[in-house]
């Protein structure tokens, strides 16, 4: 197989990127649920016939390295029986998925009688059954309490999904209409990708296209290796901690021993703590993706995120640890926790190899969902999810971190809604929503600030809240002498004048009208020793009221 000429190679490289972008636009326009069309919690990929990632739309970084596992799982399950027109679906984290709410649609793209590509769409669904509304169940001790498991299934043939299977899936969720709408949008986007890839194959033929794919992946690999090769050689340990597992155990460690030799990196997670009873365990695809995400953050942003750029990375883990749990352990929280801790441990270790590329830690995720009723809309209940008061991003050698830009796993890609709209739509009053002074980790370049929220409940009766998250004991890590950021601190200030700290993994917290939720989000970690900070920058922060 000879490589195509350089111009054809560039043309195809551009086409593949444009195709995933177009699929992403289509998904955004057709998805039904808020989590997809507003928060963009979905990802798009093209893999080649060997399940190698070729191109991916930049949406949610934690999805970046996980998609090929899904295609691989379909190949393992169906192999030679895959035919033109098939539609595959999976979500099971022990069969190619990351966590149950993320459904993945996979469509093969045939030429010359064989699958040349797979068009892949992954999206986070608002509900997938299980013990609690909205998929995050801190009480789950088995994956069966987290929702419906789908190992790779043949959802349809001849480009049409089987209506009975779709009905079966949506019937197992609390929001069948939304899940059905989003599933149809995913299939539509995957078919759009197929159509575009077929026109590429039509024009260039399967052989030339495959040669181009191989060349594109090799070029990315060389690009990544060139950058990694410029870093210092050595072996370092990085460590990050989860607060607790919700069942009484504290300080759960993720430990990475990272060895950088020449242009390769080995990340050994063997020494990480044993798996936990709750949903903080990380499925293997998610663990691999968190490691890849960390290293992608350290490479140049323009390195193409494909199979080639991840070839220099080897990942080692031990079964029975939190980063490689045994089949059946709950994992729903893993795309944020312990992804964020895996990422942080790897960046900490590699900060020794490439200090100017490392960044202070980004925030941790701490969710709250409130269910109640509104006097203005009698007979209807509402569910409100906290996306406000985001944590801060980390500082780096290039400058201070972004305030309220969120966590490692989303990195400024998740949007929170309008306060005015929330007040108009829900019986909630936002007395304050501002930066939280003092939340950033100090450093030569400080982290970004977290947000602060004072939100009063104005429901017409009792309401109930669930939490799911981490990071009230450990703040985002400082890097290379930079200081850790303040951790989260959420309190419930009762209408009767009493107040208590909220825990990160609570189910069924009773709320009354007049109660105020006081969220103080953590900031981002600092980079470099604080004493080297430019005094003018410090004076500016003081003047701005950020300290």
């Amino acid at each position, binding site marked *: 197989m000879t490589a195509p*000429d*350089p*111009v054809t190679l*560039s*043309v195809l*490289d*551009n*086409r593949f990127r*444009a195709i995933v*972008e*177009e699929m992403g*636009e289509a998904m955004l*326009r057709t998805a039904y649920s*808020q989590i997809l*069309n*507003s928060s963009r919690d979905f990802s798009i990929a093209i893999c080649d016939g060997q399940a190698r990632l070729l191109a991916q739309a*930049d*949406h949610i*970084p934690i999805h970046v390295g996980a998609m090929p596992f899904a295609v691989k799982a379909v190949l393992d399950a169906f192999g030679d029986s895959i035919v033109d027109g098939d539609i595959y679906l999976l979500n099971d984290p022990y069969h190619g998925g990351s966590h149950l709410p993320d459904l993945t649609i996979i469509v093969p793209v045939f030429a010359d009688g064989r699958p040349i590509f797979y068009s892949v769409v992954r999206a986070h669904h608002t509900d997938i059954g299980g013990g609690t509304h909205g998929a995050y169940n801190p009480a789950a001790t088995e994956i069966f309490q987290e929702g419906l498991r789908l190992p790779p299934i043949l959802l349809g043939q001849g480009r049409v999904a089987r209506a009975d299977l779709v009905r079966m899936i949506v019937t197992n969720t609390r929001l069948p209409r*939304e899940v059905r709408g989003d599933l149809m949008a995913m299939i*539509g986007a995957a078919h759009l990708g197929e159509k575009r890839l077929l026109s590429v194959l039509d024009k260039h033929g399967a052989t030339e296209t495959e040669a181009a794919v191989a060349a594109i992946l090799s*070029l*990315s690999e060389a*690009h990544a290796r060139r950058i990694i090769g410029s870093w210092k050689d050595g072996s370092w340990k990085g460590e990050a901690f989860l607060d607790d597992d919700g069942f009484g155990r504290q300080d759960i460690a993720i430990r990475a021993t990272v060895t950088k030799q020449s242009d390769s990196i080995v990340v050994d997670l063997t020494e990480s703590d044993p798996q936990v009873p709750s949903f903080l365990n990380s499925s293997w695809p998610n663990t691999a993706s968190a490691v890849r995400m960390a290293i*992608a*953050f350290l490479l140049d*942003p*323009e*390195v193409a995120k494909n199979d080639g750029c991840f070839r220099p990375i080897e990942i080692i883990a031990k079964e029975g640890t939190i980063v490689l749990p045994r089949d059946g352990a709950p994992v729903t929280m893993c795309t944020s926790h312990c992804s964020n801790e895996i990422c942080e441990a790897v960046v900490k270790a590699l900060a020794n190899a490439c200090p100017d*590329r490392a*960044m202070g830690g980004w925030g941790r995720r701490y969710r709250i969902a409130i269910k109640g009723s509104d006097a203005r*809309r009698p007979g209807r209940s509402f569910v409100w999810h906290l996306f406000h008061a985001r944590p801060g991003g980390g500082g*780096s050698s*290039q400058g*201070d971190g972004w*305030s*309220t*830009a969120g966590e490692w796993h989303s*990195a400024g*890609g998740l*949007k929170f*809604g*309008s*306060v*005015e*709209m929330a007040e*108009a*739509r829900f019986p909630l*009053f*936002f007395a*304050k*929503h*501002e*930066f939280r002074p003092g939340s950033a980790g100090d450093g030569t370049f400080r982290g*970004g600030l977290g*947000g602060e929220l*004072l939100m009063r409940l104005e429901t017409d009766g009792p309401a109930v809240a669930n939490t799911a998250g981490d990071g009230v004991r450990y703040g985002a890590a400082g890097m290379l002498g930079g200081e850790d950021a303040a951790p989260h601190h959420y309190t419930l200030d009762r209408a009767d004048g009493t107040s208590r700290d909220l825990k990160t993994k609570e189910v069924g917290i009773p709320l009354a009208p007049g109660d105020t939720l006081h969220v103080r989000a953590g900031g981002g970690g600092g980079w470099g020793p604080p004493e080297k900070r430019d005094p003018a920058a410090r004076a500016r922060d003081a*003047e*701005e009221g*950020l300290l």
Partner: protein
Amino acid sequence: MTYRIGVDVGGTFTDVVCVAADGVTTLAKASSTPADQSEGVVNGLAVLAERLGLALRDLLARTERIVHGTTVATNALLERKGAKVAMLTTEGHRDVIEMREGLKPERYDLRLPAAPALVPRRLRLPVAERIRPDGTVEAALDRASLDAAIATLKAENVEAVAVCFLHAWRDDSHEREAAEAVRAALPGVFVTTSAEVLPQIKEFERFSTACVNAYVGPIVSRYLARLRGRLSDAGYNGPVFVILSHGGVAPVEEAARLAAGTALSGPAGGVAAGVALAERGLGQDLITFDVGGTSTDIALIQDGEAALGRGRTVAGERIALESLDIVTLGAGGGSIGHVGASGTLQVGPRSAGAVPGPVAYGQGGTEPAVTDANLVLGYLDPDNFLGGARKLDRDGALAAFGRLGGTLGLDAMATAEGVHRLANIRMADGIRVATVRRGVDPRDFTLLAFGGAAGLHASAVARELGMRRVAVPVFAAGLSAWGMLHTDLRYEMARSEINTGGVPDDTTLHAIWAGLESEGRARVASWFGGEVETKRAADMRYGEQVFEIAVPLEAVEWEAPGLTGRVTDAFHARHETLFTYALREEEVVLVNARLAVIGRLPPMAAPEAAAAGAAASPFATRQAWIDGVEQDLPVFDFGALTPMQQVAGPAIVESDTTTVLLLAGDTARMNGQGWLDVTVG
């Protein structure tokens, strides 16, 4: 003879187009003067007068109106050279504009330093006050906190103030009271309120737009005053209109008040031209394709109307005003061909700009640009670029491709061809994204190519997309300035109407739009005395959705009972068109009521169709490389083509300011209205 004049200020040239009462169009160009654009405007008018054989004063004495496209606001944002702005805002919510809804650009660039907000935090001054979404006052405006904020404004010597309070979309009395107090205490300072700029729910969009308005307002006001002064000195005291981001025009005073609305004034003229050509028979569905030096602007015209959107970001700042939905790509004539970090050949987004420009300009450029490729491949005439005003250095350009190709193992010609092809691919992909965003298929559209360089790429781009028809106006290089003369006065209004129980009843709907109508008509009546018409639209969504969609209501019968049902049905139908499905059992919410108030300017005379004479023959042949094959192409003079004359590709059709490359299989026919109509082979 009387004249109307359109003026488009670009990065390099200021284009001046005049249409005479008999419909005859004349184009003149002068160098742009970035320090004070109005200087280049008057220079351009002088060149125009000369071309018409008139003294400038005589030309201006016979000029009925001047329409202007300006990039002053855009440049102030891009270069961060706006006014020193302070913000008065609701206590407890002073960080709205810097939080940016939690979003940060460049997903994988975590080292990107945080972007400073347009208004620094110490100048975002809290005022104790609070209004609720239903209009009730939770906390009255506290004069002590307002006075404290005003004392800071004085001490800081700010040039502009944006007053931004929560829920001012529902009740702006607190904003007005605070603005009055600021005006009284700081005369001469530019004051704007969020509800005046964008009376719509969603605080980030409204506050950000108001802050942009305050940031560019003083500069735009000063510029327009200078322009007025220069024109007056030259002898012109007639109406001056500015084309706004939504594609309509407004008097200079309105453009100064709503300066944020001029952010897309530059590219708006080209889209307005597309709408005007659609009316003249070009067809109702067009994709405007404006290829300039550093970028390509793409917009859709559907059913004869330009698509509008409100998600616009300029230089990273959100401007949520109704704007033309223009997609801008970093690929133009000046885009540089280079080996990217990944080791593949790439084109753009870096550009050679006006200085040093492409290698062929001989001004010190060393990296080959798209224009260099077009020259090396024989599509451009080195001796007759811009009518011979600039000689092009073909050998220099060829050598640059030799150097670039050397690293890839390609010869110079193959490299040049690669750069041309990649530019085509990037442009085609940009159109794909622009059309899929609107849920339309580009194959049903005509590609309207203009700007100096579009004609060289249009046929190949159309093939890439499966489009069958391309049109290139004979005035391609000055089409934006021409377009400004063919658009109407426009005032866009919006009011948010949030309620908890679905679409309001008939009486409420009538009252909402009647209020908008009387206010809007009064404003436009203060601009001119002609005919005014209005167009209703609404932003609506299903109860649980987050994003609203824009629903045109022009076709909805307004007076008969049952209006609520008809408005609701219009939403379902629109949703189905855009997203392939409707949920008719779901609750529907009306969020914003909209009204466009349009003041019809007297139409321009169409030029008399030239008589079909003897077909012009090619005036030269030129060696050109297409798909690696060297061939002799006939070269036609664009201006000499007679109506209905056909030209078969491969061929080149060129004028002083534009060149069209026709590929094998293309059939072009000169249209009597002044465009080359190409059927793509």
